[in-house]
């Protein structure tokens, strides 16, 4: 019987150079794996692989040296520990994320919850080519949002709350873009300089800022044979429903306009970024 490598690849089985051996990619969301899952992965790697796993560049786990004839057995064994195969090929790939505000003091958004939500919404969704989402919690950009076809970066939009302010001066120095100046007991915020990093909020001793947590989205990043960083086309997004609508519209645009095997950046280059921007702005303003 002929082996359907495309079907195997879709199911996360990556053909190795060693004949009939596969590196099995697992479904990991936002870089989190439970202890129960880890124990099961270890057991399967011992029993069916060669006793090691590989951590991929995009937060997945692969178990190499899985034998073709044991694939079903391996899937069943992994299932006992709540572990599923991941995906490869022309579809939505692993949603990557940093630890975000649930864990990290710098985080501005709950990256893991968002990663789970995007995974539920788009896992393995078929597209003309691979499509990568990456979510980073703040301007520190540990997760390198702009490397992705669609990158999401958490931010905080701020408004000074004069009544709570003690004029200590900490925020003016904490701000790295010189958006904050203090004169005559008043704080002025130059919104054109603010990058939504949230450092003023996080350093303020009296919580004298009204805050809106939201998203900065970049489009068309690619970091393989070609290297290009994703670009923003819309302002700061203040609510999650709007973010999801923009993700939906982006995938729809890609599905509609891309040639088979064409990454999003090249679709944007060919079709025109203005055309995409127009579409996305419609959703943003809608």
């Amino acid at each position, binding site marked *: 019987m002929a082996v359907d490598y495309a079907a195997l690849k879709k199911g996360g089985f990556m053909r190795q150079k060693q004949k009939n051996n596969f590196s099995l990619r697992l479904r990991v969301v936002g870089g989190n794996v439970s202890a129960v899952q880890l124990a099961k992965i270890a057991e399967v790697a011992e029993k069916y692989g060669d006793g090691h796993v590989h951590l991929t560049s995009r937060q997945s786990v692969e178990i190499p040296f899985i034998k073709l004839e044991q694939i079903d057995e391996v899937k069943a064994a992994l299932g006992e520990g709540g572990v599923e195969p991941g995906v490869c090929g022309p579809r939505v790939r692993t949603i990557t994320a940093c630890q975000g505000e649930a864990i990290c003091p710098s985080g501005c958004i709950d990256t893991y919850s968002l990663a789970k939500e995007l995974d539920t919404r788009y896992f393995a969704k078929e597209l003309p080519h691979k499509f990568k989402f990456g979510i980073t919690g703040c301007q520190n950009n540990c997760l390198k949002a702009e490397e992705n076809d669609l990158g999401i970066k958490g931010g905080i939009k701020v408004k000074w709350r004069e009544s709570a*302010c*003690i*004029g200590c*001066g900490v925020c003016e*120095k904490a701000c*790295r873009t010189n958006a904050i100046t203090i004169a005559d007991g008043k704080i002025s915020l130059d919104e054109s300089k603010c990058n939504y990093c949230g450092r003023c909020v*996080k*350093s*303020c001793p009296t919580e004298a800022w009204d805050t809106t947590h939201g998203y900065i989205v970049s489009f068309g990043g690619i970091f393989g044979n070609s290297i290009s960083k994703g670009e923003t086309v819309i302002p700061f997004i203040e609510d999650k429903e709007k973010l999801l609508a923009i993700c939906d519209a982006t995938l729809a645009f890609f599905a509609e306009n891309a040639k088979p095997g064409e990454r999003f950046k090249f679709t944007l280059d060919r079709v025109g970024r203005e055309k995409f921007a127009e579409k996305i702005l419609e959703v943003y303003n809608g």
Partner: protein
Amino acid sequence: MAELEYQIDDSVDITDVVCPTTFVKAKVALEELDDGQILAVKMNDGEPVQNVPRSIKEEGHQILKLLDNKDGTFTLIVKKVGD
């Protein structure tokens, strides 16, 4: 905004150390104080003044004022808050 009044009980100079010792030195100095006492922390411009105030806030202490010494250093006035 309403500026707070304070009287300094002790001071520490962290301009002679670099991150992460800057914060550690300030933290140790705060541990020496009683609840409610005021510490003046002298630090360099740049990374220390960007980050140390926030770290001290995250430890639960109350920041009252940041003074520009106009010589490339700043003095942070902190009120110790016990556990």
